[in-house]
């Protein structure tokens, strides 16, 4: 499979078409599963992993999935291609670099359904949707899980549920993550409060890229911590309620920004566009910050001629591996900063953005 053909596509989670896209970038649900008759990947050797890979791939190719999933061996990929898949959220960094031996990922052309093979667990089924779509994503992943289970034997315990390598995943094996864009809460310094309350509610918060309390690009991934002792619909329902509260709050903060500092925000947005359109070198951190401002500007109605999908496209193509694939050669960090600036400039000038 030539991964370059994925370049022009945005991938499901960046499609920008789902519900609540003004605040919710994407929804992702993942199920962890292991085959009953094999050691976990902490102890399985390469031969066993190859056998696991074969069985899972057979099950995937025979399963009634629409659209079909195509498998690619990550073990056989070079570093750049692996990073490319990480950037598209199709594989984790763990599968790309930490795990060893036969492993890979199967995914559909829309990059909405994927199955990682031989990551921390034998299978990691994943469904991604644009916007807030926990119920829809669950329905789809439930079916994929059923289809695969008909052709494989999953490790399951009456008391502990689906068995996983790490006890933090045992039971339902379900990790639901919602990626939120919370620039207004960042500006008004409401984030610390949010994190504390989320911790009490047993929800995990992580910046998409970067460390510290204000994440790069104001993008936050909120996931459930609990996987055992509650049913899947209950877990998702609980999460949904909390996410809806956060969304409402962010929207309130945005309105506050508009009321109290419209001109200042307008200026910030204009400067962001200005830098993105004119810089000759730019880091990915700065790009993320500026794109966050632009994304906010669009949803505050301060930028009417730039569709959000363009922002998503700029976002993904300015990532390190994507950039190198676009220019078709490897780049060192400094060259990347130049290539990134060139790409952004060209793209935005093509659009002829008016202010």
């Amino acid at each position, binding site marked *: 499979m030539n991964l370059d053909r994925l370049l022009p596509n945005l991938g499901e989670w960046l499609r920008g078409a789902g519900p609540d896209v003004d605040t919710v970038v994407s929804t992702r649900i993942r199920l962890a599963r292991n085959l009953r008759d094999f050691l976990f990947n902490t102890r399985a050797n390469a031969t066993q992993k190859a056998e696991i890979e074969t069985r899972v791939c057979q099950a995937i190719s025979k399963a009634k999935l629409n659209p079909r999933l195509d498998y690619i061996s990550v073990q056989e990929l070079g570093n750049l291609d692996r990073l490319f898949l990480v950037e598209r959220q199709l594989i984790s960094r763990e599968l790309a670099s930490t795990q060893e031996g036969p492993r890979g990922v199967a995914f559909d052309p829309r990059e909405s359904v994927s199955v990682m093979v031989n990551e921390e667990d034998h299978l990691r089924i994943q469904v991604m949707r644009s916007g807030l779509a926990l119920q829809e994503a669950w329905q789809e992943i439930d079916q994929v*899980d059923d289809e695969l289970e008909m052709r494989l034997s999953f490790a399951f315990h009456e008391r502990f549920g689906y068995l996983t390598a790490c006890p933090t995943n045992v039971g339902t094996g379900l990790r639901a993550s919602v990626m939120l864009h919370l620039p207004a809460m960042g500006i008004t310094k409401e984030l610390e409060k949010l994190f504390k309350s989320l911790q009490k509610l047993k929800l995990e918060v992580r910046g998409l890229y970067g460390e510290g309390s204000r994440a790069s690009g104001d993008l936050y991934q909120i996931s459930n911590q609990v996987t055992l002792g509650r049913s899947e619909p209950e877990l998702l329902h609980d999460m949904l309620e909390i996410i809806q509260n956060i969304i409402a709050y962010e929207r309130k903060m945005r309105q506050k920004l508009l009321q109290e500092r419209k001109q200042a925000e307008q200026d910030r947005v204009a400067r962001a566009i200005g830098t993105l359109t004119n810089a000759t070198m730019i880091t990915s951190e700065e790009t993320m910050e500026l794109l966050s401002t632009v994304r906010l500007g669009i949803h505050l109605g301060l930028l009417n001629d730039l569709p959000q999908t363009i922002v998503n496209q700029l976002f993904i193509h300015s990532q390190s591996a994507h950039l190198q694939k676009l220019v078709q050669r490897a780049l060192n960090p400094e060259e990347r900063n130049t290539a990134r600036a060139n790409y952004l400039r060209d793209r935005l000038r093509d659009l002829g953005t008016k202010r």
Partner: protein
Amino acid sequence: MNKCSHCGQPATIHFTSLVGTQKHTKYLCEACAREEGITGEIPLAEGGPLNLQTLVAMVLSSQPPQPQTEHLRCEACGMKYVQFRAEGRLGCSHDYDAFAAGLVPLLERVHSDVAHCGKVPRSLRARSELEQLELELHRAVTEERYEDAAALRDQLREKEQQP
């Protein structure tokens, strides 16, 4: 789930104290624990929000070594419980039973509950439906509800014949 020894609410904190050679154990809810001066709070990892691997490591390291679990070993994969405590990951499906003594408190800490009540694999779903029907049939016979028993017996026969 255990109940708080002070107020009877669900207890999320299992507090063990060693006074000399005397070991005292009690179950507390968060509110009563705070009153006792036991915070039970996991400090945020440096650099920002908590992630799950850190959580497992912290819970494992904050638990005192449990004497009755030190020697545990899984026959199927050879993993020792102490290795799991060091690595944070298990070796095979059988570890869950082999290490239950140590895992159950950990699972309570992370998930607040230890009984799975979610999805069941389809192949096992059928089996437990049969078991459920058998149970009800037995109950009906014991209670001399013979009509119910007959209906259940027919249902059972039907289900058993299904692939």
